């Protein structure tokens, strides 16, 4: 999956318009970066990439790039 495809997937999960996210987008700047969006991402990572994330890992995410780096099969 290319980075662009991963970003599109994140935009879909976060219910954001296409083109909203960039790799260097800071998560805390996003209005949608709340507990339920984080939960959606946790589930997406598990279902699509087989990654089970712990709370500490989620807390360490600062940018979209941090999530993209996890999106590896």
């Amino acid at each position, binding site marked *: 999956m290319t980075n662009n495809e991963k970003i599109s997937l994140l935009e879909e999960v976060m219910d954001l318009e296409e083109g909203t996210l960039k790799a260097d987008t800071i998560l805390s700047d996003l*209005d949608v970066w709340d*507990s339920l969006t984080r939960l959606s991402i*946790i*589930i997406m990572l598990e*279902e699509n990439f087989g990654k089970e994330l712990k709370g500490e890992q989620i807390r360490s995410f600062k940018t979209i790039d941090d999530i993209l780096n996890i999106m590896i099969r």
Partner: protein
Amino acid sequence: MLMQAFWYEVMDLLKPFDDIFCYTSSFSPIDSRMYVLIAVGDPRCSYQKKFSPIIVDPIIDEKMVRLLLEKNILNLSIILTHEHFDHISGVNFLKDNFKCRVICTKDCADSLSNPRKNLSYYFEALFCMQEEEIRNQVKMMDIKPYSCKADEIFVDQVVLPFYKHKVNLTHTQGHSNGSLCMSIDNRCIFSGDSLLRNRTVVTNLPGGNKQLYNKITLPYINSLPKDILVYPGHGVYYRLSEINIDRSAKNDK
């Protein structure tokens, strides 16, 4: 009238009715709400057998169980507004203490037995960014992956009798596959997470669908009387006219 006097002491009347009592409790720290509805009719008739209390979105509440057992209530009807764990966590607890029939949509029932679909598997993760005190509180709760079952399922809509009243259950997709709204005589409605005050409806959890919410659920909500009282899945009740319901579903902080 002794029975009615008892309920007056421990419960409030369910507005706008004068013959239905309501006990509410909250599942901390997420503040999901359970509603226990008792129709108090003629105490000379054994209403408990005819119209068992309705529990909407049960949580584990031992005080409530003691209250019902003290009044010899043995049968319950449990209505699930949707399949998410914070709205079903008390199902098995109630089944251990009462004879229950659990009623929900077919789509809801399909997810109840799967901890990943009912989101119990991820409950602790929901609080991963909260303050340490809350994270520790949730950790102490030791929520295990949860599974339960429905007894009666429906698609689209069903009407149930409840003493002198009609309880209408309508499948309202969007927040989740299996969401429903429960109205009583079109005078009050239990909306689950399909309509919340001061928060836009979440539709991006697994099973959520913004298009279906806008196509099916919003029109349904817009068709309701504007003075209907809304008892939501989180937070306190309010009148439908107090909020702006014509908005597309997107996340709020």
